[in-house]
């Protein structure tokens, strides 16, 4: 009798058997989630049939039917998928400029906050505490409304023109709708010059590597920045001469009775609002990351650099920052991702990025469900690409132990 009771093959009743309970628990969880999703989906299908709103993606091939603001080249009759591409392009554009601004301002402010100079440290701290605690949307709206739309700038007809001294070219044209700045224009074979540029970049990278190798092997000073830039400059100059003026500089001018900017590079108020506001906002987070990662480097490193008689710049450039970068890079990439996602706030100020265009397109009678699925898909793919970068960086930056 007793031997049978202690027999390990006798299992507890099934309602107390962990092995059974685990399976049952998971099955219940899956079934509940499945039923919930099925219920939602059945309602969706039911409601869409009742209201006659389609759920398929066929609308992508139908005409957009509205003009994207500030995109005169866009034809309202072109299909919706082209509108999506315009939106994605604008999202990327704002993200790239925002990230650059955030990186530069954030680095400066982050280092300044650690400065021994009282004024610099306090100003940097004030910057961080100010921008970090305001919703980014408020900053964007402030730019769009208080700086541009109802701000101090004149409208395009009376815009401020800052001329190039000695000529009648405009360097900057400032108005509340658009800003103009000089740009490069195709004067025949810009594409060929682009190829030259790509070629030059490849050569410059090779030269960089070669100088690094020389430095590694012989200890001779590498001067790789000078070498690479020099080679690039020489190649570009050769290309410019060989191709016979492939491009020329165009200056922003007001054309058509001062109703629009011709020539030069025109940026819209919406773009400046979104990229500028998000750049300044994200810079406050970047500054905190920079500060945190510099503080995380032990003071011994700093003292060692002092013992080697490195000056302040060299200490940062060769000792502190390379180590801090390893700590800072993962959160910095996360901030990039946040900035990309925050560009969706442009929906409030009419910068034609993907969220804004999707909202406009739904307002124009396009089916909401597939539109939003596409919108989420776009952001998800951005997130996946950036997390992939993050993983690569994490793998490469790990200290070999």
């Amino acid at each position, binding site marked *: 009798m007793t031997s049978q009771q202690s027999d390990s093959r006798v299992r507890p009743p099934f309602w107390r058997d962990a092995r059974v309970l*685990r399976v049952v*628990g*998971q*099955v219940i*969880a*899956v079934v509940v*989630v499945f039923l919930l999703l099925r219920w*939602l*989906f059945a*309602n*969706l299908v*039911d*409601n*869409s049939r*009742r209201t006659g709103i389609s759920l398929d993606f066929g609308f992508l091939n139908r005409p957009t039917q509205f003009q994207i603001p500030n995109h005169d080249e866009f034809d309202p009759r072109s299909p919706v998928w082209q509108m999506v591409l315009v939106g994605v392009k604008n999202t990327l554009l704002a993200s790239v400029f925002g990230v650059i601004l955030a990186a530069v301002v954030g680095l400066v402010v982050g280092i300044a906050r650690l*400065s*021994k*100079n*009282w*004024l*610099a440290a306090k*100003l940097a701290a004030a910057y961080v*505490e*100010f921008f*970090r*605690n*305001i*919703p*980014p*949307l*408020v*900053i964007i*709206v*402030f730019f769009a*409304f*208080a700086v541009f*739309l*109802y*701000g101090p700038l004149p409208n395009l007809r009376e815009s401020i023109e800052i001329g190039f001294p000695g000529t009648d070219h405009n360097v900057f044209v400032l108005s509340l709708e658009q800003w103009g700045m000089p740009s490069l224009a195709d004067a025949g074979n810009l594409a060929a010059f682009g190829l030259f540029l790509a070629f030059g970049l490849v050569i410059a990278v090779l030269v960089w590597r070669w100088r690094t190798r020389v430095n590694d092997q012989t200890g001779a000073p590498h001067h790789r920045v000078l070498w690479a830039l020099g080679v690039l400059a020489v190649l570009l100059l050769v290309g410019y001469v060989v191709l016979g003026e492939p491009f020329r500089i165009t200056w922003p001018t007001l054309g058509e009775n001062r109703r629009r900017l011709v020539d030069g590079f025109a940026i819209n108020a919406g773009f400046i609002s979104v990229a500028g506001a998000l750049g300044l906002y994200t810079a406050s987070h970047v500054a905190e990351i920079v500060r945190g990662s510099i503080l995380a480097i032990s003071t011994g490193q700093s003292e060692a650099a002092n013992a080697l008689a490195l000056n*302040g710049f060299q200490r940062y450039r060769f000792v502190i920052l390379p180590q801090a970068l390893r700590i800072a890079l993962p959160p910095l990439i996360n901030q990039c991702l946040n900035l990309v*996602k*925050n560009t*969706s*706030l442009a*929906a*409030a100020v009419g910068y034609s990025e993907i*969220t804004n265009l*999707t*909202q406009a397109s*739904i307002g124009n009678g396009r089916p*909401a*469900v597939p539109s*939003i699925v596409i*919108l*989420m898909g776009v*952001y*998800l793919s951005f*997130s*996946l690409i950036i997390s992939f970068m993050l993983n690569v960086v994490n793998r490469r930056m790990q200290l070999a132990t």
Partner: protein
Amino acid sequence: MTAVENRPAPVLSTTPVEWVRERLFPNVASSIVTLLLLPVLIYVGYRAVLFVAVNGRWEVVTRNLTLFMQGTFPRDEQWRIVAQIMCMAFALGVGASTAASAAADRAREAGLPVARQQPLEVVRRFWPLIAFVLVLLYFASTVTPWLVVLGTLALFLLGTAARFLTASFRNVGWLLMALSVIAGFQVVSGTTGRSWVAAAVVVLIALWTSVGLEGLDRLPRLAARVGLSVLAAAIVFGVYTLIPLSGVGWDRWSGLHLTLWVSALAIVLSFPLGLLLALARRSTLPALRMLSTGYIELIRGVPLITLLFMGQYILGFMLPAGSNPSSITRAIAAITLFTAAYVAEIVRGGLQSLPYGQTEAAQALGLPPAKSMRLIILPQALRAVIPAMVGQFISLFKDTSLLYILAINEFLGVRSLVHAQPDFRSVAHAETLVFVAFGYWAFAYAMSRESQRLERRLRVGI
């Protein structure tokens, strides 16, 4: 051996001139920085003072202060909001005194001196909020805001006076606080809706977890708890059915009032959801783990605005025909679902930071998994992530401004009502935006200061 006589530490005194030389002009580079920054600072400061004191057309705020605070809330129901503020002040007072007596008990147990909260210390801790209230009072054109602030202070002090009660019966203190919070919510939203169910649930949870019945055995304790809960539910039910107050549902709230409530509700709702998601993600059951991971990664990959769009444009489609929650309800749901994913990742970080020895120790004590999680793992894990969690809630608070894009008139959105008035159609946008930004900043900065303080006090954080 003769002891060396105690000497005071040498006094390091710097004259102002020394200070300036040391902190502003220590070397050439630093001097250049100072000389570059000083004019910028002076110019910006001058322009800022000019804007605030001279140029700003602040009558746009003065005349619309009520609109900013409560938006389109019906004017003849305004007393409800005042009553709500009073209830909240009382709850805050009770909560503060209960927390203080709990801290005093802990200190006494540990043999440390009991720190008493100095009034000046409170001012130092919450100066952004106090500054905001002072600005509001400065802009106030009637006497009502002054009365409200004085009443708030009085009720807060009344709440702290409950200390003699909460010192010995701490659970009573927490329960009193929960009840007055619920009463504060109900006095505005009314009791005719289904909201009393929520109230009853909160009371039950408070009662169930807080009433100490340690002297009893397991079964009698359960019976006593069930009995007490039924009694409390009956009382709540009775109160709500006997006094059928008609109220103003939250789909008619707006202004700062709405912003604060949306934040509070989303915080309260997203925390348990995030906790469950984190536990599921750390679970050994693959199905739960995959469901939770999929949810978290999906939500974290998209911006909040797409979820809000989903709430506005799709959710109505996904519910059975006829049921149509208000757009504010849908927005709260979207923010909650969004934040829960981030809370889950934060909690997961806390769980992962605990050494596995804690789990093993709990197992060695014979605790079943649920109990070891509840009594050993979670308290430590959650304590470690309090600062990160507060950070997430600050960003939730800032994210409520997105409701503006959905044309809901929260604190940022009421601007569109203000500027719809003929007097302010195209002027004074900078003034309203600065005021709104200052409001958000005051709350967010106060929260972030508190979180830094907690981080230092608990010696946690990254």
